[in-house]
């Protein structure tokens, strides 16, 4: 088994006094689909540009197929940048063929591949149309096809779903699965959690330039903690009733209380405790964990931590 397609080791990137990425370590194993998640400005695109050698890290090391990013290793990579752009006067077919040739394909092979991909994406009749004549969605498809026309071993997609309608988003998801089946390793960034939930084996979450989570989806849900939603008749204080029994209630929406389950305690134990406490129960439902909740929780924590650090630094400055 060869080296991992991508390994970042304690990578930091600064722009002037602003630190865009701080001490990021992550790995993308061969054959995996990894979601690179984070809110806008989290440092995802900067990290990906470093992974591709477009930007050099100020600290740390980037390994692409076991070596520093270079044109040879980049030939095995397909990249869809966040900022979409194509030569407007080129035709769809020529565009795909051009980028495939830059990655080492022969002229004939690249044209054949372009025709095949355009046909498969329903753009066959637009193969000879100039990019300027295509709709935004069509142009985006052409760019996606340009990034994977040379059948890369490793596909890096920066916010691939942004700007696509739900039908095309589904089409792209199918294409990612197809590429994965072909044997490609895939790393894609997004801030739409549903795509990551459906596609990823593992995820890396970023917030404020720092990695806040790196693991499988199950581990991510575990990080959030399990909970049950218990509805009670108006006026009953479930928090006061369950707290003595070791349960923590961290959210309430009307008369529905969110009860966190401590380690080793299951949903039935929580229900039993509520009944024992005389709670007039109107509804009961184990919470379905969503990646979005994990994301919000981790990002909020990171932001709160940043705020704490910033306040501490301010105080230290004032004292000094």
């Amino acid at each position: 088994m060869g080296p991992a397609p991508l390994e970042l080791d304690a990578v930091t990137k600064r722009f002037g006094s602003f630190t865009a990425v701080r001490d990021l370590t992550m790995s993308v194993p061969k054959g995996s689909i990894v979601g690179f998640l984070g809110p806008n400005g989290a440092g995802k695109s900067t990290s990906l540009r470093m992974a591709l050698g477009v930007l050099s890290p100020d600290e740390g090391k980037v390994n692409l197929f076991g070596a520093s990013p270079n044109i040879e290793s980049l030939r095995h990579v397909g990249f869809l940048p966040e900022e979409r752009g194509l030569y407007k006067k080129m035709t769809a077919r020529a565009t795909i063929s051009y980028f495939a040739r830059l990655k080492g394909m022969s002229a004939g092979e690249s044209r054949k591949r372009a025709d095949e991909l355009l046909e498969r994406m329903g753009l066959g009749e637009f193969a000879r149309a100039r990019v300027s004549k295509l709709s935004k969605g069509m142009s985006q498809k052409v760019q996606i096809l340009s990034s994977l026309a040379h059948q890369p071993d490793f596909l890096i997609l920066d916010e691939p779903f942004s700007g696509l309608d739900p039908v095309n988003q589904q089409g792209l998801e199918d294409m990612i699965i197809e590429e994965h089946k072909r044997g490609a390793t895939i790393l894609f960034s997004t801030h739409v959690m549903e795509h990551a939930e459906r596609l990823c084996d593992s995820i890396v979450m970023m917030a404020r330039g720092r990695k806040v989570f790196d693991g499988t989806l199950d581990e991510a849900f575990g990080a959030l903690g399990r909970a049950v939603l218990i509805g009670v008749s108006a006026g009953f204080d479930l928090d006061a009733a369950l707290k003595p029994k070791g349960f923590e209630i961290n959210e309430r929406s009307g008369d529905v209380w969110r009860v966190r389950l401590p380690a080793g305690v299951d949903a039935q134990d929580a229900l039993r405790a509520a009944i024992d406490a005389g709670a007039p129960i109107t509804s009961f439902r184990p919470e379905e964990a969503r990646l979005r909740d994990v994301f919000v929780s981790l990002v909020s924590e990171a932001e709160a931590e940043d705020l704490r650090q910033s306040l501490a630094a301010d105080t230290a400055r004032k004292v000094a």
Partner: protein
Amino acid sequence: MIRSIYLVARRDYLGYVQAWGFWLGLLLTPLLLAVAIMAPTWAENSQPTRYYAVIESGDTFSTVLDAELNENRVEMARLSLDPASVMGGAEPNEALVTFDETLQSGASIEEALDRAGAPAFELPQAGFVQVPAPATTQDAITPYLLGDQLVDTPEGPLPLFAAIFVPDGDGEIEYWSENVTADTLLRRAKAAERTLAERRIFESAGVDPALLSRASQETRPVTERRARPASSEGGSQVTMADRAPFYASVLMAFMLWFLIFSVVNYLLMGTIEERSNKIFDSLLTSVKLPHMLAGKLLAVLAVALTLMGVWALGTTILATALGDMIDPGIRGPIFTVLGSVGDFQLLLPALLSFVLGYLMYGAIFLALGSLCDTIQEAQTLMTPLIVMLMVPMFMITVAISDPESPLIAVMSWVPVFTPFLLILRIPTVLPLWEIAGLLVLMIAASLLVLWLASRVYRAGAVHGAGVGDVGKWFGKLVPGKKSKA
């Protein structure tokens, strides 16, 4: 590496030549150049003939004035009869001798041309023609000048353009005309008076005017010679072959300037397009930055060579098709000059100058484009560059009159002007150390500019630096001034 450069160059080249602007430039440039060359002649020929009167006793002033006004037409007629002699200093042919003699005898230019036998030449029409004065006093002539009354002319009745009153004795000459902007006739009248004043002074000193006429006829020819003539046929006498390298160098310097001026814009526009279309990241993950820049520079160089090639081919076809229609006397000097273009001693430095000059200016425009999202943004930085590109054009003009001017010598050591001025200085028997020095300077300057341009390009393409950052970079260079950038 070669493949990447080739692919980038090929794409860019095809992108440029498929644009309608390229074809417009290809076809219109020779037409516009032809118009620019012919414009003075057309302007002269399109001028209506103007009619003037001289009020004097006798015809002394009007005869001299007529000769002054026809000086250019005489020179054109002489050139048509014997270009080799008029331009190159060769012995005059029989036709020219006949023409000069006929003119000396007092005949008109048309008559002299007829006698010399030059039916193919169409003499431009005279700009000013004298008519008999319709009146002899200022009051009486005023209605003719105002157009209230008309004078008889070969074209029919027309207003009088000017009336010149020449008094007897020392009185002041009065030039009357309602047109105060077209001063050609006025200047010629002043010149005629200067000639007459000389004659009067000689006469007052007891010198017969006929002697002056004889003096001009018996002027000994001044033959230009040099120790190392280009052609051994005429001995040491300077011929067109000696001057041809200089004319060729002017031609090449102008071509270099023209090509750089016309094609560097392609680099600017192409890079702005890539930046505004956000293509850099896709490209930079497929091609190394130096290879991408090399491809782009090569593409535009190929565009320049295509333009040159098509124009050269067009000129050759036209010359072959119309060659017989060109007077052999004119064709000879042209081919001598064109032959000098192929001279290795001139061609090699010229080619190096072209390549290095193109690289220098191309890299600057490429870097500039990488900082701009729109053409409007680029224009804020374009003005100083255009001014910088115009200076060599002025230098070429100075060099035409004196290629050994100290100004040209000094300016040729300014790297951005070296490519143009080195070519112009080569025919002036430049010492070898200076040629070598200028070439080294050009190479070093080109490498420095390329290095700086690639850094600016990286800042623009990778880090998104913009026009506003240029000011900050310069700010950093000012000692003691801190910049936030």
